[in-house]
């Protein structure tokens, strides 16, 4: 092999872009320090796929007891960002700091187990964990799915499966829950229930939650903070701030923004509620390729 691979070439190109002529139209300040009060703190996450920029200097902090909702249109890099935070995505730049031995529970976006693999819910929950049946029942009860314990995974309804996945994420007593579109395949009333459940889990266990969603108005009610992603963090803050933000309106259209009725407050606190994450404030740090 001689010369740079296409990915490396594109990476260099992107560096060049940002150093001299930033396409985002805002200044990249100097790299900011990690937030030491956060469970997980990421700075300047950058990911390229071929010569396409998937993530552009994304900063994220998630604190204990906080629900952070990540929203963004399709292809905005939500799942890539989640994978990066989980540590399963190689990055072209940026750094992630986690509290020591951070335990993360993860609910993936798609879960289509092959029907040729027979497995009960109990067995699935116990995979990789030495948990007695009582512990399995307890965690299933916590998510309201205790009667599923002896059912086959392939026989569960969409809502039951999401609850079982949530139970699986909780079984190791995580400090951080990462949920990638947890209401996929769940009907409308089921959605609200599931979000209420996530809120309760946060209250009871005091865990941090990162929720990925394209489903905006229901999510907002449970969120402490919303990050709106479109390759870079376009806007962030408490839900009402984001709902009023011009970048948000531009991304999702005024129609979606109007569905935000409950949160329509005066635009008197757009800045300063979360100084770390405001648009244009994200750092300009190029780390080593991981």
């Amino acid at each position, binding site marked *: 092999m001689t010369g740079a691979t296409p990915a490396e070439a594109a990476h260099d190109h992107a560096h060049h872009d940002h150093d001299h002529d930033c396409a985002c139209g805002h200044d990249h300040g100097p790299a900011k320090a990690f937030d030491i009060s956060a469970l997980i703190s990421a700075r300047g996450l950058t990911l390229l796929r071929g010569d396409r920029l998937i993530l552009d200097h994304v900063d994220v902090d998630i604190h204990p007891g906080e629900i952070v909702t990540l929203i963004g249109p399709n292809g905005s890099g939500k799942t890539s960002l989640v994978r990066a935070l*989980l540590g*399963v995505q190689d990055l072209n730049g940026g750094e992630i700091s986690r509290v020591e031995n951070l335990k993360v529970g993860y609910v*993936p976006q798609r879960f289509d187990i092959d029907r040729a*693999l027979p497995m009960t819910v109990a067995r699935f929950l116990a995979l*990789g964990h030495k948990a007695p049946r009582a512990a399995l029942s307890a965690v299933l009860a916590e998510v309201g799915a205790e009667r599923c314990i002896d059912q*086959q995974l392939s026989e569960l309804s969409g809502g039951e499966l999401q609850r079982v996945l949530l139970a*699986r994420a909780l079984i190791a007593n995580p400090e951080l829950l990462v949920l990638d579109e947890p209401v996929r395949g769940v009907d409308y009333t089921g959605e609200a229930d599931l979000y209420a459940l996530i809120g309760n889990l946060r209250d009871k266990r005091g865990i941090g939650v990162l929720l990925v969603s394209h489903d905006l108005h229901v999510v907002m009610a449970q969120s402490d903070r919303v990050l709106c992603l479109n390759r870079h963090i376009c806007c962030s803050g408490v839900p009402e701030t984001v709902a009023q933000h011009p970048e948000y309106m531009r991304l999702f259209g005024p129609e979606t923004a109007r569905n935000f009725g409950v949160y329509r407050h005066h635009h008197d606190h757009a800045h300063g509620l979360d100084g770390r994450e405001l648009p244009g404030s994200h750092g300009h740090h190029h780390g080593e390729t991981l």
Partner: protein
Amino acid sequence: MIEPFLLRALAAGIGLAIIAAPLGAILVWNRMAYFGETVAQASLVGVALGLLLNIDVTISVVITTLAVAALLIVLGRQKLVPLDAILGLTHHGTLALGVIATALIAGPSVDLMGYLFGDVFAVTTADLWLIYGGGAVVLAVMAWLWQPLLRVAVHEELASAEGVPSRRVRAAFIVVLALTIAIAMKIVGVLLAIAFLIVPIVAARPFASTPEGLVVTAAAVGASSVALGLTLSSNADAPGGPSIVLCMALIAGLSLAISSRR
């Protein structure tokens, strides 16, 4: 009194059926049946290589199988055509190469049919040692890798996020698969080797409710098919390996038919 060659064939076939079951399950759960088929049939190139370099065919088959698996993984990363097309390309390309190479290198005296379909009645005591010795290694590694393999089969990304080294686990599995294919080739040849892995799993699926239950049932189906197939073969003077595989396929068909009526 059973003839010694028939006993050896029975012992070899049953041994292979037991070794094959856990590997077949992992192949099926990961939707890798055609992947297995492709690397198995490509092992004919390994036969040619072994004859050409005058080294043990088992060794050259293991090496070739691993090389083809690595090639498939690299080719599978491109996004222009789907993986099954890449598998089709590799499968037929290497089969053609293997047939030409075996014919050219060894001349007409080489028993091509023997390598393609195996010769279960020609199994020697040394082959039995290979099957049971190699098989013990395969089963030991599979037992050691079973939990991580199962977690990767359930959901690879979830397993990775939970700290399972998915890539290394898969790589180790492919090495064990290569060894199993080399063992199976002695009995059923390169064309039918993967049938020993896949077909019993299909047959056993409707009657299993746990992953391990499926593996044990599949091993039993495989072993019974060996006994049935060899009986059929020695009574009707039909080729041994294909008779065994035909019995497996009939049991699998019957099993699916019964389960779809329930």
